């Protein structure tokens, strides 16, 4: 039968040549005696392309090992280098990138064989030494040295689950090591089973290999047979013999463990069928083959020979003759899909990167996510199937697998491997400290937040050094101390730093290697920073079975959550304050002032034995001061991601970040039962938008910014020394975020959220809004400005409904007026009208309420009057009309019989109003402004808001003068301002008068620093003034100076009136209100009727102007704001 073996590809110089396939089967790497590593394309089409050459080594490359993301190579002088395989080793050649990523080991003897554990955590290296070296791939630290072989070790191999390691020595001894324990122990020794070979001879070494389903170890034995040793029982289950006539030097399992390929010194390449236990094929080479490997995803074999040539054997297994293919068919079915995916997604790769990036503490998580990623790519399907095979394969194996413990780097975590999905129990919950990193080059961050960082430096067996570095050097000086406890976690707050040791079970800390296990006692220790108390440090020992899982510290105290499910609360001084039981599923906890945020794994979390998991979280927000529960509920994360950071913003917003880079804040936590998580930033999207491959390591949130360490060059954790922090602006993931509207919406939304939080927090702690009331007013105004911009955009785009929706979100009445004005300016008259009506309902209730407790400080008003009268322009006073309709409604309506029916309750105001209307008569003829203000002073006082003050003051002065019986003389001087600017309320309606409206732009600049509530009050008050005065002008007998423009205005009103005449009874009633003011003066009852709709339309325009005038006035005068007292 013909064999599809390619012509030799002379990859290397003559000599021993190593070979390995990439996990996806796309590439095959060879290393040879010219100290080069070459990477070839494996697929038929691309096979002839030029190889990528890596020139890292300086001596013969003897061994190669490839995992999902790493390639390791060892050479004859004992150097083991690692290479990072680019994002998607699966995808086409373009994306192939193999970058040297460091030296794994320098030994003095040739690195003979390398095996990478699952999850790329560790690597076992056999040198011609008597020991096997286990090196962590995370930090290249030497973890273990497995001693026991008598004679140089020439082969190592991890079991696929990394529980066992098999090693073989030149003396023919095969040892199996249990890697679950901190000190891996040899669980089985097979003496004199394998070949006895001469150390140092490259060609005459042999390899032992674990089958990829984990059931057997294949060992080339001294009788030129391959023996399969069964896992668990360690009995020889099968022996394949008869084909090789000389020493078998290398063997390889196919990815589905159905076939073995072996090469020997007899120059034969033999394919064995495991199930049939016989050889099915053999191929005689021209020179001695060195290594052979199966393509994991294809019916393809590649082998090298001692001439440095590589051969590829396509379609090895004669599938057409009824043999099963050497790989899982399912895998190839997925294969196309896989490739699509891989090509589609460098984004996907970035995702993987991120999710990897944030797995800082949890080894198992790392492993799981790695595996999961593989599964995502379909790359690892065969592995899944293998697991199923195991289940089908035999009870004893399931048993063997049932309760093993992985401990692949001495981290000491426990995972019960259960078939299929299962609900997770306590031990699986992996807790972490926000802001901590694993060990990198003997250093790690224990804590990293806005206060500073805590760095632990591994020194020797007995102690570490801890450095506390502060950002603000003026508050604390940096602290260094020698740490004999070997603290594994720290929580830093402004007032102190809490340290804790913990059981090895809960932390991935290599520096704890060798620590005693049985009776380890955890210690918590607090270091206070306050200088006044002499001995603010304290230490507690926990009971022997109780270990801290996570700790938190704030200025109000510290919290330790232990493995017993206890939440222990201490004061900063070390007094034990509270103890509480929690479900033993705590993931992390953080504290801010009196709040403690505890994240738990929810009961819905499930994990499979394939490492897949679906994590769900819950949170509990506690108050430290009274131990009450502020909020609790589910804590959402993006699908198949996990929480990697939790914290509080500087303002106290609880926040979490998941491994997909989405930042969420807990909103409305101050309202019982209303808390909800709001995503405020998708940091991974941000990184993508920036077009850089960077990852953000969360540190804190502050003032609408996400403070991160930007990790570049595939690094996962912040480097040493402490890097400069980057600030990412919060960007709420609203739709169409790239458009102007979307941006504005997102900005408004985030502003609102943070504003509400500040208000809520102030309310909760009965404290003050940061920056005081003026800051609050300013922030409120800022939000309204943003809505106004949105309203404008909506108007421009003719989206009137949207504009109205937006306008309804406006908080300040003043801003609402501006919205109306914008509508008018954008010639959306129907919108403007609608908004006018909206305004009634929206602000009416406020007004009524405020009417009752509004008051005015007469004296102050008088004082201000003198200075403000000058500013009192007609424009300013007159624009307060609409609010008068609602605001004044109650007090004024009492005089008109028809509206009394609507407002029967205000009897006490009648007298006052009667008095007022008397005033009206007196000062009638344009000075109605003063009169209505009088009404205001009597029944309800407007607070001295600048704009309002003007009118109110006029009223005040009018009143006093009336008492003197000299009102005309005194009032007149206040008149000129009203007449100085001829007022045309409808000017703004006509396009030609657009200039007037343009001034509304000043709103954004001029209006500032007003208390929102006050401004509402004031505008209502002042508008009342305008309303009456305007009604009187048309009658305009008394004041000749101002009647002319008003008449014009009135004409326009009448022209316009038709459109709004269909107002309801309410409007009529309101219109009637106006009548009372001049009713007594001129008795012009007929005016009420025709004024009905007109007033409304007038006011629509007026308000806009009043607003700008108002704001301008406020700015000019800088009037002190104060709430005045109710006189009645």
């Amino acid at each position, binding site marked *: 039968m013909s064999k599809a073996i390619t012509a030799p590809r002379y990859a290397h110089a003559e000599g021993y040549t190593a070979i390995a396939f990439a996990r996806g089967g796309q590439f095959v790497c060879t290393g040879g005696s010219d100290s080069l590593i070459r990477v070839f394309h494996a697929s038929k089409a691309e096979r002839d392309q030029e190889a990528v050459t890596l020139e890292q080594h300086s001596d013969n490359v003897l061994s190669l090992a490839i995992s999902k993301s790493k390639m390791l190579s060892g050479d004859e002088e004992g150097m083991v280098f690692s290479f990072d395989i680019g994002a998607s080793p699966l995808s086409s050649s373009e994306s192939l990138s193999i970058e040297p990523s460091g030296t794994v080991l320098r030994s003095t003897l040739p690195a003979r064989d390398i095996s990478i554990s699952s999850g790329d955590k560790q690597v076992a290296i056999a040198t011609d030494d008597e020991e096997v070296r286990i090196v962590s791939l995370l930090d290249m630290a030497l973890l273990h040295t497995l001693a026991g072989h008598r004679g140089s070790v020439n082969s190592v191999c991890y079991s696929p689950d990394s529980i066992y390691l098999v090693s073989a020595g030149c003396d023919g001894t095969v040892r199996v090591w249990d890697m679950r324990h901190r000190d891996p122990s040899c669980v089985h020794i097979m003496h004199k089973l394998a070949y006895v070979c001469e150390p140092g001879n490259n060609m005459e070494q042999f390899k032992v290999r674990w089958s990829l389903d984990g059931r057997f170890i294949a060992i080339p034995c001294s009788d030129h047979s391959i023996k399969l040793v069964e896992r668990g029982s360690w009995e020889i289950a099968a022996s394949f013999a008869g084909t090789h006539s000389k020493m078998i030097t290398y063997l390889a399992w196919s990815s589905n463990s159905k076939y073995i390929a072996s090469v020997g010194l007899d120059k034969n390449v033999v394919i064995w069928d495991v199930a049939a236990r016989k050889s099915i094929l053999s191929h005689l080479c021209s020179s001695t083959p060195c290594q052979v490997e199966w393509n994991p995803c294809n019916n393809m074999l590649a082998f090298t020979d001692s001439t440095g040539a590589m051969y590829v054997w396509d379609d090895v297994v004669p599938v057409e003759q009824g043999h099963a293919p050497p790989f899982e068919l399912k895998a190839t079915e997925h294969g196309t899909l896989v490739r699509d995916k891989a090509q589609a997604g460098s984004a996907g790769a970035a995702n993987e990167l991120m999710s990897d990036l944030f797995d800082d503490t949890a080894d198992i998580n790392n492993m799981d996510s790695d595996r999961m990623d593989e599964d995502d790519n379909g790359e690892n399907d065969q592995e899944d199937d293998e697991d199923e095979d195991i289940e089908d394969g035999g009870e004893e194996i399931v048993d063997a697998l049932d309760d093993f413990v992985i401990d692949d780097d001495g981290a000491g975590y426990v995972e019960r491997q259960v078939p299929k999905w299962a609900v997770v129990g306590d031990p699986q919950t992996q807790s972490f400290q926000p802001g901590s990193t694993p060990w990198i080059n003997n250093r790690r961050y224990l804590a990293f937040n*806005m206060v500073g960082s805590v760095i632990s430096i591994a020194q020797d067996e007995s102690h570490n050094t801890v450095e506390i570095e*502060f*950002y*603000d*050097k*003026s*508050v604390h000086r940096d602290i260094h101390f020698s740490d004999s406890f070997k603290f594994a976690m720290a929580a830093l707050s402004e007032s102190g730093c809490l340290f804790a040791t913990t059981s090895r079970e809960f932390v991935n800390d290599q520096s704890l290697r060798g620590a005693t296990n049985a009776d380890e006692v955890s210690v918590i220790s607090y270091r206070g920073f306050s200088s006044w108390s002499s001995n603010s440090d304290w230490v507690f020992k926990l009971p022997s079975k109780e270990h801290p899982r996570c700790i938190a510290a704030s200025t109000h105290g510290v919290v330790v959550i232990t493995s017993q499910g206890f939440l222990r609360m201490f004061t900063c001084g070390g007094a034990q304050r509270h103890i509480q039981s929690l479900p033993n599923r705590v993931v992390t906890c953080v504290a801010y002032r009196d709040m403690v945020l505890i994240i738990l794994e929810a009961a819905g979390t499930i994990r499979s034995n394939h490492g897949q998991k679906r994590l769900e979280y819950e949170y509990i927000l506690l108050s430290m001061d009274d131990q009450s529960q502020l909020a609790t509920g589910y804590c959402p994360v993006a699908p198949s991601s996990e929480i990697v950071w939790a914290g509080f913003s500087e303002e106290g917003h609880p926040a979490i970040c998941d491994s997909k880079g989405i930042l969420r804040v807990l909103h409305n936590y101050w309202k019982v039962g209303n808390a909800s998580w709001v995503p405020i930033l998708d940091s991974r999207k941000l990184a993508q938008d920036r077009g850089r491959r960077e990852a953000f390591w969360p540190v804190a949130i*502050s003032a609408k910014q996400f*403070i991160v360490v930007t990790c570049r060059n595939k690094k996962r954790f912040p480097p040493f020394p402490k890097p*400069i*922090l980057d*600030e990412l602006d919060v960007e709420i993931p609203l739709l169409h975020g790239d458009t102007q509207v979307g941006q504005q919406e997102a900005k408004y939304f985030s502003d609102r959220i943070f504003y509400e939080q500040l208000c809520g927090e102030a309310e909760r702690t009965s404290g003050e809004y940061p920056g005081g009331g003026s800051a609050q007013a300013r922030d409120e105004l800022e939000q309204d400005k943003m809505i106004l911009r949105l309203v404008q955009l909506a108007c421009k785009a003719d989206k009137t409904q949207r504009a109205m929706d937006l306008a309804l979100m406006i908080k300040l009445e003043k801003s609402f007026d501006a919205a109306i004005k914008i509508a008018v300016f954008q010639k959306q008259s129907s919108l403007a009208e609608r908004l006018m009506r909206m305004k009634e309902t929206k602000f009416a209730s406020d007004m009524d309420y405020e009417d009752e407790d509004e008051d005015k400080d007469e004296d102050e008003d008088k004082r201000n009057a003198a200075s403000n009268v000058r500013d009192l322009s007609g424009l300013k006073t007159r624009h307060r009309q609409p609010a008068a309709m609602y605001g004044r409604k109650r007090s004024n309506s009492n005089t008109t019989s028809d509206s009394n029916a609507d407002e029967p309750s205000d009897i006490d105001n009648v007298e006052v109003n009667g008095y007022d209307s008397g005033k009206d008569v007196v000062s009638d003829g344009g000075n109605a402004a003063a009169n209505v203000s009088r009404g205001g002073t009597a029944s309800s006082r407007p607070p001295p808001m600048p704009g309002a003050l003007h009118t109110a003051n006029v009223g005040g002065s009018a009143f006093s003068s009336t008492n003197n019986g000299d009102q005309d003389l005194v009032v007149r001087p206040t008149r000129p301002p009203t007449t100085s600017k001829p007022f045309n309320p409808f000017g703004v309606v006509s396009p030609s008068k657009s200039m007037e409206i343009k001034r509304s732009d000043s709103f954004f600049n001029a209006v500032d620093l007003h208390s929102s509530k006050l401004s509402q009050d004031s505008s209502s008050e002042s508008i009342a003034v305008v309303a009456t005065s305007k009604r009187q002008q048309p009658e305009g007998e008394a004041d000749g100076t101002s009647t002319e423009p008003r008449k014009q205005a009135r004409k326009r009103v009448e022209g316009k009136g038709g459109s709004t005449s269909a107002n309801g009874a309410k409007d009529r009633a309101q219109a009637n209100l106006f009548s009372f003011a001049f009713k007594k003066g001129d008795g012009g009852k007929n005016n009420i009727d025709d004024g009905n709709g007109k007033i409304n339309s007038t006011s629509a325009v007026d308000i806009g102007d009043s607003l700008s005038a108002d704001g301008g006035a406020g700015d000019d005068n800088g009037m002190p704001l104060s709430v005045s007292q109710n006189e009645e």
Partner: protein
Amino acid sequence: MAISSRQQEGFTMPELEYMAQCESIAIVPLYRMDRLELVRGTVGPFRPPQKTEVPLWLAVMLKRTNRCRIVAPSWLSYEHLYKLYKREEEPDSLFTKLPQHYLEIAYMLLTHAEDDVEDSQAIRRLLQDLREVRQSKTQRGFEMLNPTQLQMDNLSAAEINEIRPLFRHSFDMLRQLDALASAADGTQSHQLQQLQQYDDSQPYSELDDAFSPSSYLR
């Protein structure tokens, strides 16, 4: 005036450095401080570890007293400069975009805050290379010197300063010669007109103004 004629025409390096000190740069303060009211405006407040923009002179001053870390500007990174260098090296390439005071800023940062600049040695070397490439380009520009104008975009202050004395005189001389030549021709009056126009629109005093300290200081 005790300034040499050479100095009158251009600035000395310290003078340029002085001008560059008004450029703003980000720092990470190490001490909490309130706003600082400076003549040029307010800076701060300083709230570690958040970045703040301050004038370079203040950054250097704070750095000297160890009160801040200076955040190296994004262009002052090895990758960025290397990219620029490669682009400059391409034949017929224009000047790459760099801040007007890049040399001065880089010099000051590398002297006073070397620990805050990553790869400072490599950057020093690159800057030297970059400067040389650009220098050779400006020198090639001399060949194109003509009486009307010579465009060299993205030239930094120090580089302009370097060529100023020579260029100024050459321009002057060329212009005079050109005027003489056209006058000698005496034929094409509009050419003369053009020249006069040019004279009016771009008197040299104005050109000088463009490089005067006042414009740097805004």
